[in-house]
């Protein structure tokens, strides 16, 4: 049977996401034929030009993959390099790295909740429009974001592309009094984050459910950020070293975008705040766990729109843990452990604001990178986003093109996609176009 009518819906540019991409939907005789995220963010070839650079330069270079989550790239880089060089940072360095990561989670989550996603849930087009209706709410969001940024600047010199992180530790660490002076701001942020969690829990979230496999790092004693095993809601429990055997990045025939899938069955999975809260609920700090229990949501949740609530719960966690680290901080005489120049290979995964971020490096005897592999969280979520769109679109076919696009964009925004991060992605067209 030949196709009689073709309806193509095209969104040139997704808005309120980081980086640039569009959306293509194609219906044949009223049936969904194709759906694809059309990513035209230009490739920047980080994995190629990292080769030949010193391992000491890597955290500064990989930070530039993403202006919103530079710390995540620095963290996965230095942990992979330390693994390659067989270096173990001190417990104090470990705690400070968690504090820096908390600061980035606060900044990134506040940005996404208040500026990128909340306007959707009020039917508004931007935070500017939201500020006209709810000025106090927006001010609270901005102040929270600012505190995250200020904490990053305190620990790293500046909020975007901080300069303090090195393999082995830090170039410089703060004094206890510098951290103590910041405590009041974090106390305010904790209160505001609890209000954020209440606000997010009360939002009218659309009903949607799918059979997700959630994937996250997990650690028995803490809410995993920088170390742990990779676990999933489908029973996966592997060492980080087994990541590349378990998950594969595919360059599929109809698309030039790489998609991560489970290697064994080719299925999609989800990383990010919802995956983490679902899998690591027990390791949440007490107030964050209370907020989750009082949210009215049954955990684990299989509704991607609950992502905004998960993000708010992590905001509480990040503020709560920041306070704990600040209160127990003791400065060490040395800011870092010396890294020897030797050949080695190592990998690491850490939890970026948007989910699991995997790096692997091979370093030669001169300390220069010979091979680099980076798998950003958004690359891992793309296939899942498209699977979600395939479930959503058949239910909303009676809507106008404009409404369909708006609903699809809203669904994609749940994943807080960071297209700038996903260096692999390119413009694509369906066959025959």
């Amino acid at each position, binding site marked *: 049977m030949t196709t009689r009518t073709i309806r193509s819906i095209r969104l040139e540019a997704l808005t309120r996401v980081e980086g640039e991409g569009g959306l293509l939907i194609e219906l044949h005789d009223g049936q969904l034929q194709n759906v694809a995220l059309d990513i035209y963010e230009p490739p920047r070839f980080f994995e190629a030009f990292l080769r030949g650079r010193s391992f000491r330069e890597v955290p500064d270079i990989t930070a530039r993959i*993403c202006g919103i989550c530079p710390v995540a790239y620095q963290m996965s880089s230095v942990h992979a390099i330390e693994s390659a060089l067989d270096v173990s940072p001190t417990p104090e360095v470990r705690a400070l790295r968690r504090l820096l990561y908390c600061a980035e989670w606060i900044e990134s989550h506040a940005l996404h909740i208040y500026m990128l996603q909340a*306007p959707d849930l009020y039917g508004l087009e931007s935070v500017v429009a939201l500020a006209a209706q709810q000025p106090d709410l927006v001010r609270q969001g*901005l102040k929270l974001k600012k505190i995250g940024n200020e904490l990053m600047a305190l620990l790293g010199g500046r909020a975007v592309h901080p300069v303090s992180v090195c393999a082995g530790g830090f170039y410089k660490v703060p004094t206890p009094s510098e951290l103590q002076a910041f405590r009041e701001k974090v106390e305010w942020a904790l209160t505001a984050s609890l209000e954020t969690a209440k606000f997010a829990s009360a939002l009218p979230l659309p009903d949607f459910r799918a059979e997700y496999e959630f994937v996250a790092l997990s650690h028995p004693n803490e809410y995993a950020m920088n170390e742990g095993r990779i676990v999933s809601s489908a029973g996966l429990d592997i060492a980080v070293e087994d990541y590349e055997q378990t998950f594969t990045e595919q360059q599929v025939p109809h698309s030039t975008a790489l998609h991560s899938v489970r290697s064994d069955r080719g299925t999609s999975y989800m990383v990010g705040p919802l995956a983490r809260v679902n899998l690591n609920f027990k390791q949440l700090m007490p107030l964050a766990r209370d907020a989750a229990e009082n949210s009215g949501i049954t955990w684990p949740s299989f509704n991607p729109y609950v992502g905004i609530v998960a993000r708010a719960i992590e905001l509480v966690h990040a503020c709560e843990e920041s306070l704990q680290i600040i209160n127990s901080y003791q400065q060490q005489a040395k800011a870092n452990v010396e890294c020897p120049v030797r050949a080695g290979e190592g990998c690491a995964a850490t939890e970026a604001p948007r989910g699991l971020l995997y790096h692997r490096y091979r370093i030669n005897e001169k300390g220069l990178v010979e091979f680099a592999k980076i798998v950003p969280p958004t690359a891992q979520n793309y296939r899942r986003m498209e699977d979600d769109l395939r479930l959503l679109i058949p239910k909303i076919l009676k809507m106008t093109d404009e409404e369909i696009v708006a609903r699809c964009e809203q669904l994609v925004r749940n994943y807080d996609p960071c297209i*700038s991060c996903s260096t692999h992605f390119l413009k694509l067209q369906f066959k025959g176009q």
Partner: protein
Amino acid sequence: MANETKPRLAVYKLASCDGCQLQILNLEDELLDIVGAVEVVYFLEARSQTSDGPYDITLVEGSVTTTHDLERLRDLRRKSQTLITIGACASAGGIQAIRNMQDVEEYKRAVYANPAYIQTLTQSTPVAAHVNVDFAINGCPISKEQLLEVITSLLIGRVPQLPTYSVCVECKRKGNVCVLVASGMACLGPVTQAGCGAVCPSFNRGCFGCYGPMESPNTDSLCQALLTKGVSRAEIVRMLNGFTGWAEEFHSAAERLEKAPL
């Protein structure tokens, strides 16, 4: 309508990390005042409504790496009264300009399973290599203060005042001990434009040139000084070929150093 008299501001992105446009959203204390003073008519990261132009002020982040972006940029220039580049990618080609000194076909094979799908130019180039730029804000990332200075200057009709001197001036003002002289660390501070607040020397490490070359830098002389301090030639070349490595002053100094007899 008040909006009819407000300048129309657009924010565009080419190849980049989003960090410089994020600095606009990081002006948390001033953001609501800014959107009161200008009408933000195109800013994909921040709002869903978009206008195709014309624009009074256009901020461009990112470098040119594809023919598609080159076409977009030319079109954007036609539609913009004042075009300002924000950040090291737009002003100097960015970190991705390392490819300019390498074989980009090999890069495609290294990163992608099917390199034939990849459409990219052989070089990552700054915006000013293709269209007229009215003003450049340097930095990787740009500083919020410099961004605010430029926006407010435009609104009141004066020339923005940004420093053209080196990071050393900021470093001395902060009272830092010189990391190059006292500790022998490799530092590009003497030839790099100020604006970051000497953030790296303040963190006990050398400057790596995020803000690009200062006005009339003596880069060759700095290279000699670093060699005398025992920094290897390869390390100096890598530093110069970094975040603003495609800027003429840094790129040419790196080339001269590489070709110089040992």
